[in-house]
């Protein structure tokens, strides 16, 4: 019993240290403009930023902007995932296609999706579609590559077992290939969700379609530093929420598979 409590103490210590770290950061932030190390015009007081956050959270317009950011995020992620799963499974299963597409993938994947912003603007103007082009392009590769890995990772012994028991192609796909690829897909999805959020907000900043990113850009050009910091904090919280949710989903689907998979898909 005593030991159980030392365990709990350790968890408590960890939580406590985390809170101390967070509090320490906020105090330092508050002290820097207070002591005049940086002019509060450039680094506003943390209290002002917090007040602004509270103010915004009461404003319906704020939630509408958040909503449009998340809408383009969700649509982009869904389209990219669907396309990547379908194409990834086909390419992953056919060795000829895998070899033939290899160079193409290796060339297209590293192209920074932001390079496509000018093209997207030309084609769609400052609408959500322009942002979607960039979001989909960036998050597609994350899922696509993982799905190809996953489909190719089917254990040779398991495949032979399936063949020796005379499983049909269709049965092999549903009972062997998809379960093997699922953890990879989840990893790809987690990475894609983060990337999609980054590009949703980036697109709003650069292109100017409505959303949180646009608010950041507007605050900057208006010299509203309190607003700027407040919106940056919001995007951070949003990113944190996306990470936590997708990490949780990934862990749930992976729990049975972790030992088999090793470190491949970090």
């Amino acid at each position, binding site marked *: 019993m005593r030991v159980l409590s030392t365990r709990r103490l350790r968890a408590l*210590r*960890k939580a406590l*240290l*985390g*809170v*101390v*770290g*967070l509090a320490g*950061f906020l105090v330092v932030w508050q002290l820097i403009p207070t002591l005049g190390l*940086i002019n509060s015009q*450039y*680094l506003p007081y943390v209290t002002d930023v917090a007040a602004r956050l509270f103010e915004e959270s009461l404003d319906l317009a704020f939630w509408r902007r958040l909503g449009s950011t998340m809408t383009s995020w969700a649509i982009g992620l869904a389209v990219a995932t669907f396309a990547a799963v379908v194409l990834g499974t086909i390419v992953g299963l056919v060795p000829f296609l895998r*070899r*033939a*597409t*290899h*160079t*193409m993938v*290796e*060339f*297209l*994947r*590293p*192209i*920074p999706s*932001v*390079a*496509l*912003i*000018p*093209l997207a603007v*030309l*084609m769609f103007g400052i609408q959500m579609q322009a942002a979607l082009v960039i979001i989909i392009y960036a998050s597609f590769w994350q899922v696509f590559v993982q799905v190809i890995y996953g489909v190719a990772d089917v254990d040779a012994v398991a495949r032979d077992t399936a063949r020796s028991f005379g499983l049909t192609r269709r049965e092999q796909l549903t009972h062997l290939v998809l379960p093997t690829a699922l953890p990879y897909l989840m990893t790809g999805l987690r990475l894609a969700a*983060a990337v999609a*959020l*980054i590009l949703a*907000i*980036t697109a709003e*900043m*650069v292109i100017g379609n409505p959303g949180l*990113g646009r608010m*950041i*850009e507007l*605050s*900057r050009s208006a010299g509203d*530093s309190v607003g*700027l*910091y407040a*919106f*940056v904090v919001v*995007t*951070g*919280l*949003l*990113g*944190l929420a*996306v*990470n936590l949710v997708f990490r949780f989903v990934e862990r749930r689907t992976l729990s049975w598979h972790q030992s088999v998979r090793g*470190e491949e898909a*970090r």
Partner: protein
Amino acid sequence: MTTHPERIAVTRRKPGVGSRIAASFGYALGLPMLLLVIWGLVATRSTSRFFPDPLTIFEAFVDTWVGPAFVEDVLPSLYRLGLGITASIVIGIAAGTVIGLLQWLRELLEPLLEFFRAIPPPVLIPVVMLLLGITDTMKVVVIVSGAIWPILLNTIEGVRATDSVMKETADSFQITWWERLWFLVLPAASPRIMAGVRQGLSVALILMVISEMFASSAGLGYRIAYFQRNYLIAEMWSGILLLGLVGVFLAVVFGLVERRVLRWYHGIREVNRV
């Protein structure tokens, strides 16, 4: 293994037969060539101004980037990119090692680092602009402020997860602190660190482009945005192509370095698979 206990496993090398080389050449270039041809055909027939044919883009590429523009726009961008990446790697690994080795520091900083990692890096551009003004330093700092997080967090995780038997081995032979760092902790964490660097590279490139689109009167990102605003479509495409080449270049260099640094890691995987 039981039948050949004295055998030394050798990592396989592909036999260099001519026909095989030709085949892999065909596989490597077949699809890109095919797509280029299709693009060319479609572009000459369609009326869309936004998709000029590949030859026009190629001509624009040569006209735009070969010459003084390379020195004025491309080199400074690449210089800042290189500086930012180097700083991110050095600071990320150094800080990550310290944080990974000290449990109390790790627990103190963990929630904070999680938050900073979650901030979409481009939103830091206005913040850094506000703090540092529109300077070259600002652009490098922007790159570091975004690219450092995956490297830092992966290093922390890799250092923390050093194998217990490996640590006991180091203990029992009384390896010194430096030897331990250099021969155990960093190599053991290197697969994780390299994974972090890979993520950091793509973030760095994104930030280089965006920071120049935002606040610059020169550089690759600025040029591309300028071409777009002035409807210089082929030139804009040539910029996209150049950025793609930079991305591929980074990926290739990273691949070479990674293969060298993680030779043992890939070797183990290959031996296990056989």
